[in-house]
């Protein structure tokens, strides 16, 4: 037997992040007790190096690590998005960690490890490595959600996240096992080929497996009825981690969903499309109605994240074709908006407290004009008002649904967007129309967080005014999936 020829270059970005994470971990181990290792500069350097590696990989035309870990246009697109999310989260973190008293090097290690998992999730063309990537991401996030060891809320969030996460991983794994039994392979392409000519027994196994996969992914992207963990976890976790979950995990999970359903299960589209459409409808409705009832801003954004999973699923129904590129484009817009929204709350944190209610942000425009303006931009984009990334993104999502013959999905999506205006704009009204209550209790916006928030706002506006470059790239990425 000859040694396998393996091209390791595609794994370089993920390796850089993993090694950086390990370096931060060891730096923390060799730092005297009670002090924090300089995790943020390390992580920023690692993330920038990984971004350069992604650029070089793109210039080289991607690569293929033994058929399991593939860097094509699709995963390059997600690489850039996920590393970008990582950069913003790391920029937001130092001031938040100091304000809440959890400034430890391990935080950055876990963030970097979870990013490694996300990179794997969007690049794996094989079910074993896909599952391993998913767990690398999830296990790091379980620990991150519970990082605030003195706050019962944080521990409760971690426990709930772990139980639902492990539950969904179990479903996903069982589904993978059934697909393996039906097709005799774990490679997505081979599974897809085998399912095109199924026997009666394998068809039953494959349909069951697909259903279980859908439940597993449903949990990960927080779609109704598998969403009940999201509000609690988003509220209890440290806010910068909530930002990472809502932007990064959702992007990576949708990336894996598109790849698995697009490459391995197109033959079963007739059976999973109606199910995904049903999920999309209930997710849009329940997510938006749930958000209406919230007074806590973090919970409101959590329900909004559930609702957005619904909009995205509406376009997944229309995949492959125009649906995939719409989802890819919207994930960028959505990531920028959520990083900004949760980031703005995190940037104001002082002495373990952060603004959580409408009263807390009342009159913010007079005290923190720049931050209030940025937050207003994010909320307007979440609503989907023109000249914001959210409008362009939703337009493409719903157009994809209409073109694929699912007009009813688009109609429900538009109606629900109108409903959502009420709870998003309520915050804007509180910031601009109301007088501030009491003393100014919030921190001045730290420079690095300001940079991160400005970056997110710039992306939101740029995508709203001039979406073509990203759209072209998304189209290229979508094509590489076929």
């Amino acid at each position, binding site marked *: 037997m000859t040694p396998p020829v393996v091209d390791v270059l595609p794994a370089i970005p993920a390796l850089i992040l993993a090694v950086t994470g390990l370096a931060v971990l060891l730096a923390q181990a060799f730092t005297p007790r009670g002090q924090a290792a300089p995790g943020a500069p390390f992580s920023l350097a690692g993330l920038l190096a990984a971004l350069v590696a992604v650029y070089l990989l793109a210039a080289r035309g991607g690569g293929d690590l033994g058929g399991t870990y593939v860097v094509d246009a699709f995963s390059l697109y997600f690489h850039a998005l996920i590393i970008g999310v990582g950069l913003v989260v790391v920029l937001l973190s130092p001031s938040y960690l100091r304000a809440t008293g959890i400034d430890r090097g391990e935080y950055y290690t876990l963030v970097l490890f979870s990013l490694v998992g996300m990179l794997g999730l969007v690049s794996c063309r094989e079910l074993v490595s896909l599952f391993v990537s998913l767990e690398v991401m999830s296990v790091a996030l379980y620990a991150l959600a519970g990082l605030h060891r003195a706050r019962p809320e944080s521990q*409760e969030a971690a426990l709930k996240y772990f139980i639902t996460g492990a539950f969904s991983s179990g479903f996903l794994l069982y589904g993978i096992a059934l697909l393996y039994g039906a097709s005799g392979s774990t490679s997505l392409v081979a599974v897809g080929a085998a399912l095109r000519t199924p026997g009666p027994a394998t068809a039953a196994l494959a349909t069951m497996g697909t259903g279980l996969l859908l439940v597993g992914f449903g949990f990960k992207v927080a779609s109704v009825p598998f969403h009940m963990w999201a509000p609690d976890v988003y509220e209890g976790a440290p806010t910068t981690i909530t930002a990472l979950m809502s932007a990064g995990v959702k992007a990576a999970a949708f990336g894996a969903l598109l790849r698995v359903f697009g490459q391995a299960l197109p033959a079963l589209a007739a059976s999973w499309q109606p199910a995904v459409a049903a999920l999309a409808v209930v997710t849009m409705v329940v997510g938006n109605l749930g958000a209406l009832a919230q007074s806590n801003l973090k919970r409101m954004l959590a329900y909004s994240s559930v609702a957005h999973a619904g909009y995205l699923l509406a376009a997944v129904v229309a995949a492959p074709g125009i649906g995939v590129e719409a989802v890819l484009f919207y994930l960028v817009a959505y990531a920028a908006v959520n990083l900004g929204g949760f980031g703005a709350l995190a940037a104001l944190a002082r002495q373990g407290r952060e603004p959580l209610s409408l009263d807390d942000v009342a009159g913010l425009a007079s005290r923190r004009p720049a931050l209030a303006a940025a937050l207003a931009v994010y909320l307007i984009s979440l609503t989907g008002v023109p000249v914001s990334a959210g409008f362009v993104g939703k337009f493409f999502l719903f157009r994809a649904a209409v073109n694929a013959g699912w007009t009813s999905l688009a109609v429900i999506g538009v109606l629900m967007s109108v409903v959502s205006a009420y709870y998003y704009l309520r915050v804007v009204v509180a910031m601009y129309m109301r007088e501030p209550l009491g003393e100014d209790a919030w921190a001045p916006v730290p420079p690095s967080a300001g940079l991160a928030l400005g970056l997110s706002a710039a992306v939101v506006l740029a995508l709203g005014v001039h979406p073509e470059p990203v759209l072209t790239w998304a189209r290229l990425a979508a094509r590489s999936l076929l």
Partner: protein
Amino acid sequence: MTLQHYLLVSAALFALGVLGLLTRRNAVNVLMGIELILNSANLNLVAFSRYGTGNLEGQLFAVFVVVIAAAEVAVALAIVLTLYRLRRTPNLDEADILKG
């Protein structure tokens, strides 16, 4: 012993795991339920590999799953312990600060 026998046992284990997860109050019992689910999938993978597909991918997958399950439980126990230190209870239904 045929493939069907293994699949039936695996399905039973999976059902027991889900049942344990949904009905148990004690966090440690819930962790056991999760282990049952993961191992039922493992049994499936190995059985398919031995009787169905004729390749070793399934058995290889099972080794990975065992390792991942160990990592998951390590993190989960740490979370349960910190929660126990704060609240003095291992019961899940008493973890109810976050709701609405």
